[in-house]
């Protein structure tokens, strides 16, 4: 047990990679493959909870891979990283259970498990790494594995394969360009400071800034990082790939993409701007705030007109991530807390909505909301679960979304950003409108398209599909009713983000095992 506790960060990254290789070898034994993957995924959830506990109890953990100190790759688990890893492993465990029944058998046995594990490794790695080039490597890992997963086949074939190809092509080209921009930024940063360790870069840049010799191109590099992470998180000028890609993926993968993968962008923005580019933040704070506001507006307006349920949820993701970035841009202690609470609530609620939209699509046999209706009789469970998610995204009590929106707007008002909060509040009403419009269209009213409808035509929703949805929905309610633990965790995390000295101390101290 002791040795596991000591090597927790690397275990969380290496185990999924090892599993990915094992899953390819085990593809002739589907039963064993499934059991092994679910068990390991559950163990990873427990391990990430242990990591969070360890960080909470005994401060920031730095892990030097290969014991090269600050010259090698280090993994650093502070509250932000450990919390994100915990969120990721929980949602991916539930998505994995869901996909056991949802994904087509042939695709599941051959490519789905390995790619899913690689995606998990990429996510955990990019949250835990303390090396900026390594961050790029993990970004590429999760980009390629998520491309493979978007193309995976689901039961029933509600999405045409050509749509998936088109969406994936768009996603891949844009994200490759994002990766090139990130490489340019990393190379310039390396040429400026002579190190790739994020804590070390931070020390050197603040020394330069204190001496007044900070070169001007640091600002350009910071701008490039806004483009990179904005592209990952679908911020306003770079948002247009998301509503194509997320709906085309099978539902558990949509849940992973919309719930977890766009958090990577928010995480990167927090990490890079509050650790490395602290001294350029005074210029970029307004940029982030107004990009976030534009994202909120575009997301809300586009979502109102959608007829495809998953496309509506994807546009809603665009809008909601705008609120998270608004919190990051406001930048005070309270605002960062609010952004983190918002991030967690959105991740849970949105992955729950995508999972239940998969159940709904299989129930109705179509993705077009205009052809659905009256499903509250035939699928009461899905209807109530979807209602919980709808309320959370719209920000109604007693769900977590209410707490998150309340904190965010309260933070903005107390920091006197009246105009910005006014716009955000106005478009939050849009959220209420389009989410409830979707719910009413799908579940209320008369049955339409009677001959095809209401017979679970393509696939029956089994307990494997229902249980993850119920668990996530109860998490949404718990975050609304007992918000205090999450808020205090987010407050502690925000404290660590705004005061990076402990992080730098932990990362630069040599650990000899």
């Amino acid at each position, binding site marked *: 047990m002791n040795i596991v506790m000591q090597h927790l960060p690397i275990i969380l990254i290496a185990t999924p990679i090892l599993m990915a290789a094992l899953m390819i070898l085990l593809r002739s034994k589907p039963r064993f493959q499934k059991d092994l993957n679910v068990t390991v995924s559950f163990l990873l959830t427990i391990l990430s909870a242990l990591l969070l506990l360890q960080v909470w109890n005994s401060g920031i953990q730095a892990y030097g891979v290969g*014991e090269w100190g600050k010259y090698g790759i280090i993994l650093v688990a502070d509250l932000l990283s450990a919390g994100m890893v915990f969120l990721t492993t929980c949602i991916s465990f539930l998505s994995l259970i869901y996909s056991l029944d949802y994904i087509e058998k042939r695709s599941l046995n051959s490519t789905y498990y390995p790619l899913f594990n690689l995606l998990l490794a990429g996510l955990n790695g990019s949250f835990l790494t303390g090396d900026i080039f390594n961050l790029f490597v993990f970004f590429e890992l999760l980009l*390629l594995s998520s491309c493979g997963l978007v193309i995976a086949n689901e039961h029933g074939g509600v999405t045409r394969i050509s749509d998936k190809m088109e969406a994936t092509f768009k996603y891949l080209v844009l994200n490759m360009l994002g990766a090139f921009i990130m490489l*340019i930024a990393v*190379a310039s940063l390396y040429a400026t400071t002579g190190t790739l360790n994020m804590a070390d870069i931070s020390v050197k840049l603040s020394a330069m800034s204190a001496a007044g010799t900070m070169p001007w191109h640091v600002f350009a590099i910071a701008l490039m990082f806004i483009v990179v992470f904005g592209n990952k998180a679908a911020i306003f000028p770079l948002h247009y790939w998301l509503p194509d890609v997320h709906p085309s993926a099978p539902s558990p993968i949509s849940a992973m993409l919309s719930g977890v993968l766009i958090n990577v962008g928010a995480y990167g923005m927090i990490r890079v701007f509050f650790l490395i580019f602290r001294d350029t933040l005074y210029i970029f704070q307004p940029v982030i705030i107004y990009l976030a506001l534009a994202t909120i507006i575009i997301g809300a307006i586009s979502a109102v007109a959608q007829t495809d349920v998953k496309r509506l949820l994807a546009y809603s993701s665009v809008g909601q991530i705008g609120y998270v970035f608004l919190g990051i841009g406001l930048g005070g202690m309270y605002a960062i807390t609010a952004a983190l609470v918002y991030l967690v609530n959105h991740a849970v609620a949105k992955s729950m909505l995508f999972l239940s939209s998969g159940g709904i699509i299989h129930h109705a046999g179509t993705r077009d909301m205009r052809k659905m209706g009256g499903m509250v009789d035939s699928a009461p469970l899905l209807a109530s679960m979807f209602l919980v998610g709808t309320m959370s995204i719209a920000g109604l009590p007693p769900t977590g979304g209410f707490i998150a929106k309340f904190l965010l707007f309260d933070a903005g008002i107390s920091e006197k950003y009246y105009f910005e909060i006014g716009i955000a509040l106005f478009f939050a009403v849009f959220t209420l409108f389009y989410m409830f419009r979707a719910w009413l269209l799908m579940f209320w009213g008369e049955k339409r398209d009677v001959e095809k409808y209401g017979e679970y035509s393509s696939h029956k929703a089994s307990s494997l599909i229902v249980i993850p949805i119920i668990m996530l929905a109860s998490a949404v309610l718990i975050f609304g009713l007992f918000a205090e633990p999450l808020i205090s965790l987010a407050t502690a995390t925000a404290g660590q983000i705004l005061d990076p000295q402990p992080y730098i101390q932990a990362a630069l101290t040599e650990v000899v095992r």
Partner: protein
Amino acid sequence: MNNTLLSLTIAILFGIGTFLILRRDIVKVIIGLSIISHAVNMLIVSSGVFAGTKPPIITDDGGHGASETTGTIFTDVLSENILAPITTAGHSVNYVDPLVQALVLTAIVISLATTAFILILAYRIYEEYGTTDIKELRRLWG
């Protein structure tokens, strides 16, 4: 002079790559992407230090050519918190930064994998749509 030529080459490669990415043919877009990736790789190499023909290895003679014994420490002593290389005062270790070359190798491998994937994707798109014209790929528009 050397650096100017290198910068110029990188700039021209970026230009060509951007031009190709804006074409309508999928294959041209992919070629453009890989040209941009080469430009980025050259940029990374150029971010390291150039020093003539020096190898990216720290040699024991404390530099290149000079053979006098210096007090330079080349191996880590982790228990005493010593991380190599540490040079004594008055001496300097001259070597070309090896890290950028490691970075470039990683970047090349990654872009190889991505390009292989995107080429297969382009072939499948051609099979599904019967065309490589990007303007025809518009089923998701709207």
